[in-house]
């Protein structure tokens, strides 16, 4: 593998480019696996943490101002390390501790926010997929800002009014399902919902 710069790798992640993702996996996964496995984790945990790390970097890469100033591998490692620390903390097995002069200290708060955002995204997607195919299609069209008139045409509804009603029903159904999940409350300020 020819060494790609952090920018090229970010670009590859943004494009969901398989070749880039494969080369990152080859280069970085063994280190992440080692980190997790020697700290009370297993191969499966390592895979999850690695994927979370990449998804967080993907979220960040959507922001044009985002730049990785160190080696990509180092950055990914620091993100995964933090995610694993957080996980150990949750299961009260925190044997790794953050060191005072950790060079990535400043990133951590943002990473935490991105991590939670990705968790919520996955939760939303999970319940979206439990909706009827009809509902999924209507919501997809609606969230993509397609007009009710066009939605009605595509879906073969009798009227725009019915399309509006259907979209509303589907959305309420999805929101209810999501809010019922205890994880949603965990990821949000419970009092507000």
């Amino acid at each position, binding site marked *: 593998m020819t060494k790609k710069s952090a920018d090229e790798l970010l670009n590859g992640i943004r494009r969901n480019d398989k070749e880039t993702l494969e080369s990152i996996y080859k280069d970085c996964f063994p280190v992440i696996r080692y980190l997790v496995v020697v700290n009370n984790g297993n191969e499966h945990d390592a895979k999850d943490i690695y994927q979370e790390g990449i998804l967080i970097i993907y979220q960040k890469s959507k922001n044009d101002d985002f730049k990785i100033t160190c080696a990509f591998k180092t950055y990914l490692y620091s993100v995964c390390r933090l995610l694993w620390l957080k996980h150990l903390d949750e299961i009260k097995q925190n044997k790794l501790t953050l060191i005072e002069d950790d060079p990535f200290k400043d990133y951590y708060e943002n990473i935490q926010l991105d991590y939670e955002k990705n968790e919520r995204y996955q939760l939303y997607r999970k319940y979206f997929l439990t909706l009827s195919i009809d509902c999924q299609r209507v919501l997809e069209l609606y969230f993509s800002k397609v007009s009710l008139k066009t939605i009605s045409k595509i879906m073969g509804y009798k009227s725009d009014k019915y399309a509006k009603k259907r979209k*509303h029903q589907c959305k309420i159904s999805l929101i209810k399902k999501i809010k019922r999940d205890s994880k949603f409350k965990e990821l*949000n300020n419970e009092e507000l919902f």
Partner: protein
Amino acid sequence: MKNYFKSIDKYFEGEMSENELIEFEKKMKSNKKLKAEVEFQKELQDSLNDKQIFDLKNNLEKIHNEAKNAQNSETNQEPVVRELFIKKIQLAAAVIIIMIIASSVFYFMNNRTMSNETLYGIYYEPAKTMLVVRSGNNDEVNLMQALQKYNHNDYDGAIEVFEKDNSKMAKFFLALSYMETNRVLDAVNLLKAIIEENDNLFVDQAEWYLGLCYLKLNETEKAIIQFSKISQSNSIYKIKSEEILKNI
């Protein structure tokens, strides 16, 4: 909160009048629950629009599974165990190779294919003399006569003449005559001198006969070094030297 759902829809769809919008934004500032709900629905909308993150997640999962499958088809063992296993095999292989080398060295030291004496017997033969009849000053006549003596195995007679001659040819045949008369150390010194001069026709031959001298002296190590030197050169004795090295 359900009372607000329709308003929230209207808000996202940009269907509110200016007054409704001002009113709604005022409410969001004072009602934290409403604000949170709007933010939640906005994020829900964004997440469902961002299909790429799920494609990315699927791709990552696929790559991981492919790597795992490739690994499993190689071996069913865990990678770390496998690496250790490979290291053990490598170590074992190294030990076996070292044992083979050691035993073959031992074998050759003790059960050599040929003794130095045998090798010397096979490879040594007297040098061919160049009998050139020239104009005939005395020295040259004497040299020719000495060479004839050498050809006729009269080494003592040849030595007598060669010892008085300072020419390179005389020195070379003197060395060979010493070899024939078992004065091998004298031969070695002469051959070394010829090699050191390095500017005559006899260097390659001198190198070769020096090697043979070492065989005769049973100086195996020196012989190996000498024949290695020849086998790495362009000498006419290159191939013969390689043969000796194989059998030494």
